């Protein structure tokens, strides 16, 4: 077997984040020599999932400034014997994004056969948090209707409002044909809320429902983007079974897809080295010469990396809380024949929370509640992922959201928060780019639902690596490897 140094690599991929891993998957049936490295000793990069121990080492790294895109990380544990299980019983996700059923990512996982290794769970209801009207009542969670049947069953909206909502839902499903285009295109860059008010006479409440469906982090999404996102949600509904529009990979969200993709890469012959990064790179030569942190010096034709620097200081604040309750009421499927969901989304619209100082929240907070079915925590516990666009009082606001949520779902006792991870993730407006023989992926998006535009970069990187040998029909379209499906068992 050739040693690392003797091999002329076709590509060195740095980092095992989602994009790099999908690239490894895409290259797994080519005869290219792929070396896939990651300075971390875990897979997944910015989309990794951690045991509690791994969380703590990661937090140390972030605080030491070693994780370019993350800052202000901290962990808090409740004192005493709380019922917190052993560290490996948890798999906290850095990228708990939900994937719409219509997403191209899913069809690519199917056509490349990688879907067989991922277990997908249903994402259930979207609800809105309603603060308590007075001190004697609890706050409540109100389900957002997104299908005709939801609208029919809900008791929270008047008949007239229901009709308006139905007209809008029908409009959206067909929004890119005439005559609908004539209605919305003049408002394309205006906020969606304005469009809803002007054209559909929607009141504040209905507007909130619709904006929540877009999962817009600042609530100010424009009409063009908003309609696209809502249509994606509505047309995803029921696609893989009744009652749900999105899926979530078990064991840690996007991290699982990254791992499965790397596994496929390895089966295809790629060499994997964790705990290894690039020490120096001389890309003025051809082939490129790289000195790895392991001490090896290697030669490669192409390099694929991830851009780890943020362009601005904005981003998202996240609070991940482990709670000592199964929160069963959130995970009941309301549609006959629907699978039990493992994820539920709760939105706290702007103004529904106030900080300790008494300021009303100016942007929405989104909560993704994960049951133990996701494999991210033991049975009888749940993991809560709070996200909000970074602003002055974000950390405080997220704590408010946590407290308010626990008050809303409290039965006889308020569920206890056993463990808290908080951090800020910066975002970047940088695009992926190729320069010579080097391809840089843009930093990952901080959206709450997976956006298919990410996949374009993976395709671009694949084209750069294969050059003239790229065959479009074979992109992420593979046959099962031999032995994967054996029809002949029937003949025994």
């Amino acid at each position, binding site marked *: 077997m050739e040693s690392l140094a003797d091999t002329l690599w076709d590509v060195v991929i740095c980092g095992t984040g989602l994009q790099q891993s999908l690239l490894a998957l895409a290259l797994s049936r080519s005869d290219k020599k792929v070396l896939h490295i990651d300075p971390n000793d875990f897979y997944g990069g910015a989309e990794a999932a951690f045991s509690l121990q791994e969380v703590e080492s990661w937090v140390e790294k972030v605080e030491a400034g070693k994780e370019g895109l993350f800052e202000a990380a901290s962990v808090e544990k409740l004192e005493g014997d709380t019922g917190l299980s052993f560290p490996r019983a948890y798999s906290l996700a850095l990228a708990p994004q939900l994937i719409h059923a219509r997403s191209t990512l899913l*069809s690519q996982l199917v056509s490349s056969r990688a879907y067989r290794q991922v277990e997908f769970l249903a994402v259930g209801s979207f609800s809105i948090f309603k603060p308590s009207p007075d001190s004697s009542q609890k706050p409540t969670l109100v389900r957002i209707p997104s299908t005709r*049947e939801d609208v*029919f*069953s809900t008791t929270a909206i008047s008949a007239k409002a229901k*009709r308006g909502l139905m*007209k809008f839902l029908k409009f959206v499903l067909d929004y890119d044909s005439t005559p609908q285009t004539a209605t919305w295109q003049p408002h394309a860059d205006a906020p969606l809320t304005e469009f809803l008010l002007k054209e559909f006479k929607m009141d504040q409440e209905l507007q909130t429902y619709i904006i929540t469906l877009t999962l817009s982090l600042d609530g100010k999404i424009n009409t063009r983007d908003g309609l696209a996102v809502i249509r994606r949600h509505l047309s995803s509904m029921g*696609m893989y079974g009744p009652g749900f529009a999105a899926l979530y990979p078990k064991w840690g969200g996007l991290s699982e897809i990254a791992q499965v993709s790397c596994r496929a890469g390895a089966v295809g012959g790629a060499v994997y080295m964790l705990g290894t990064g690039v020490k120096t790179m001389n890309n003025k030569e051809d082939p490129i010469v790289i000195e790895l942190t392991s001490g090896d010096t290697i030669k490669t034709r192409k390099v694929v990396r991830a851009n780890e620097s943020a362009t601005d200081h904005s981003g998202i604040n996240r609070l991940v809380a482990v709670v000592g309750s199964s929160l069963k009421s959130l995970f009941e499927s309301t549609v006959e024949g629907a699978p039990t969901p493992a994820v539920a989304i709760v939105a706290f619209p702007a103004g529904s929370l106030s900080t300790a100082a008494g300021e009303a929240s100016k942007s929405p907070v989104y909560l993704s509640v994960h049951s133990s079915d996701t494999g991210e925590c033991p049975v009888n516990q749940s993991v809560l992922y709070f996200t909000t666009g970074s602003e002055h009082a974000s950390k405080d606001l997220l704590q408010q959201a946590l407290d308010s949520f626990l008050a809303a779902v409290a039965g006889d006792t308020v569920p206890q928060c056993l463990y808290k991870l908080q951090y800020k993730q910066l975002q970047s407006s940088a695009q992926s780019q190729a320069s010579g023989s080097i391809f840089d992926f843009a930093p990952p998006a901080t959206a709450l639902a997976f956006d298919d535009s990410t996949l374009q970069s993976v395709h671009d990187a694949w084209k750069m690596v294969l050059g003239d040998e790229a065959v479009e029909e074979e992109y992420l379209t593979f046959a099962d490897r031999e032995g994967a499906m054996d029809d002949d068992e*029937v003949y025994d």
Partner: protein
Amino acid sequence: MADQGGSQHGIARTSRTRTPAQKQADLERIQQYRALEAHLRTAVSSSNYSRETFDLTTKLLRLNPEYYTAWNVRRRTLTFGLFSRRSDGCSCSRGCSSSSRSGTTTMSFGASSCSCSTRTPPGRGCRRTGRSGTTADAPVAQEEEKDEEEEEEEAAQKKDLETVKSELAFTFPLLLESPKCYWIWSYRLWILDQSILLLPVADAKKIWQEELGLTSKMLSKDRRNFHAWGYRRHVVGQLESDELGGESLVESEFGYTDRMIRADLSNFSAWHSRSTLIPRLLDERGAGEKEREDFLKTELNLIREALDVGPEDQSLWYYHQFLVDNIVSPVGRPTIVPTLTVDERVVYLTNEITNIKDLLEDYEDVKLIYEALLEYTLGLCQLEERKPEEDERQDLIDWVKKLKELDPMRMGRWVDLKRDYGLTELLPGGRG
């Protein structure tokens, strides 16, 4: 969606090209199949309905569940040996000797067909000759024999239960693959019927209840599968029959239609099922006049809320029509509130017309609304035995005009309607 057979997950299914190696593999498979087939024919022609033959049918049917002869052979292997008794009540053990029914040569293995014609219910088989020796004279010995027989009976029933279960399990994956293959369903129903004939009531009931669960699963995969609804009604009918304990399932079935409607408003079969259950439901509840009226009002509310969100849906209008018929023309069949006076009926119908008119505020171009308004307004006039009033007449004219616009394909119908009811517009000055 479940029926996107040709394009799963957005990828079109293309025909695969076969390599020479794959072609060879296919030829081998064909040979194997033919060999199995030949074996089966040999077995049948020599009337061999043994365990071996049973296993042959298993292999063949997995490859080709449409091969209905194989299903018939399988039935015979069960009745001629693998079931501990035939469903005509006779426990045919190996020792039973009699001439075979069909007159063919004696079976090589397994029991010959028994000529016992009396049908005895499960729990009592016909006496086996030559088994426990001659009938004893002393009563004590007779009792011992009886206990032995009861034990054997129980063991036999247990074995039959296992056979029934394994046969149902056998057909299940075949059904998943070929859900529309009549032969599989027919065999499954036969097994289910055998369970009533062969097993104690409690066991048979459980089997049929699981079957009801299966129909629910089928219907959740394809909610408007007309055949599945029919099958469900059959299963419910059996569960309600005397043979299985005779409990009414009307309330739970009514609840089921409720859940199905909430899952998909556009489910004509669910609405239809609901309508067929109502008369019996009200009877079993012992509903008096007040309860019946409350029930009617609740149903009217329900359908109105449904129409609020889905006025373009024909199934909803059919159900509305069903309710209105109950109010307006109750002659000759069980109705929800048979004791309504004409005045009360008029009030109900007028209410409905008002509510439907309300829909027009938000839904201007839905033709089914106009059709309903036309029909109900004319119906109201009939009920009150009068001609349309002036404002009604104007409404009718407007609605027909709208219908001509929205549904030009049925122009002939609208023209006829206009003529039959004299719905021509009066020109200024009063001339039509």
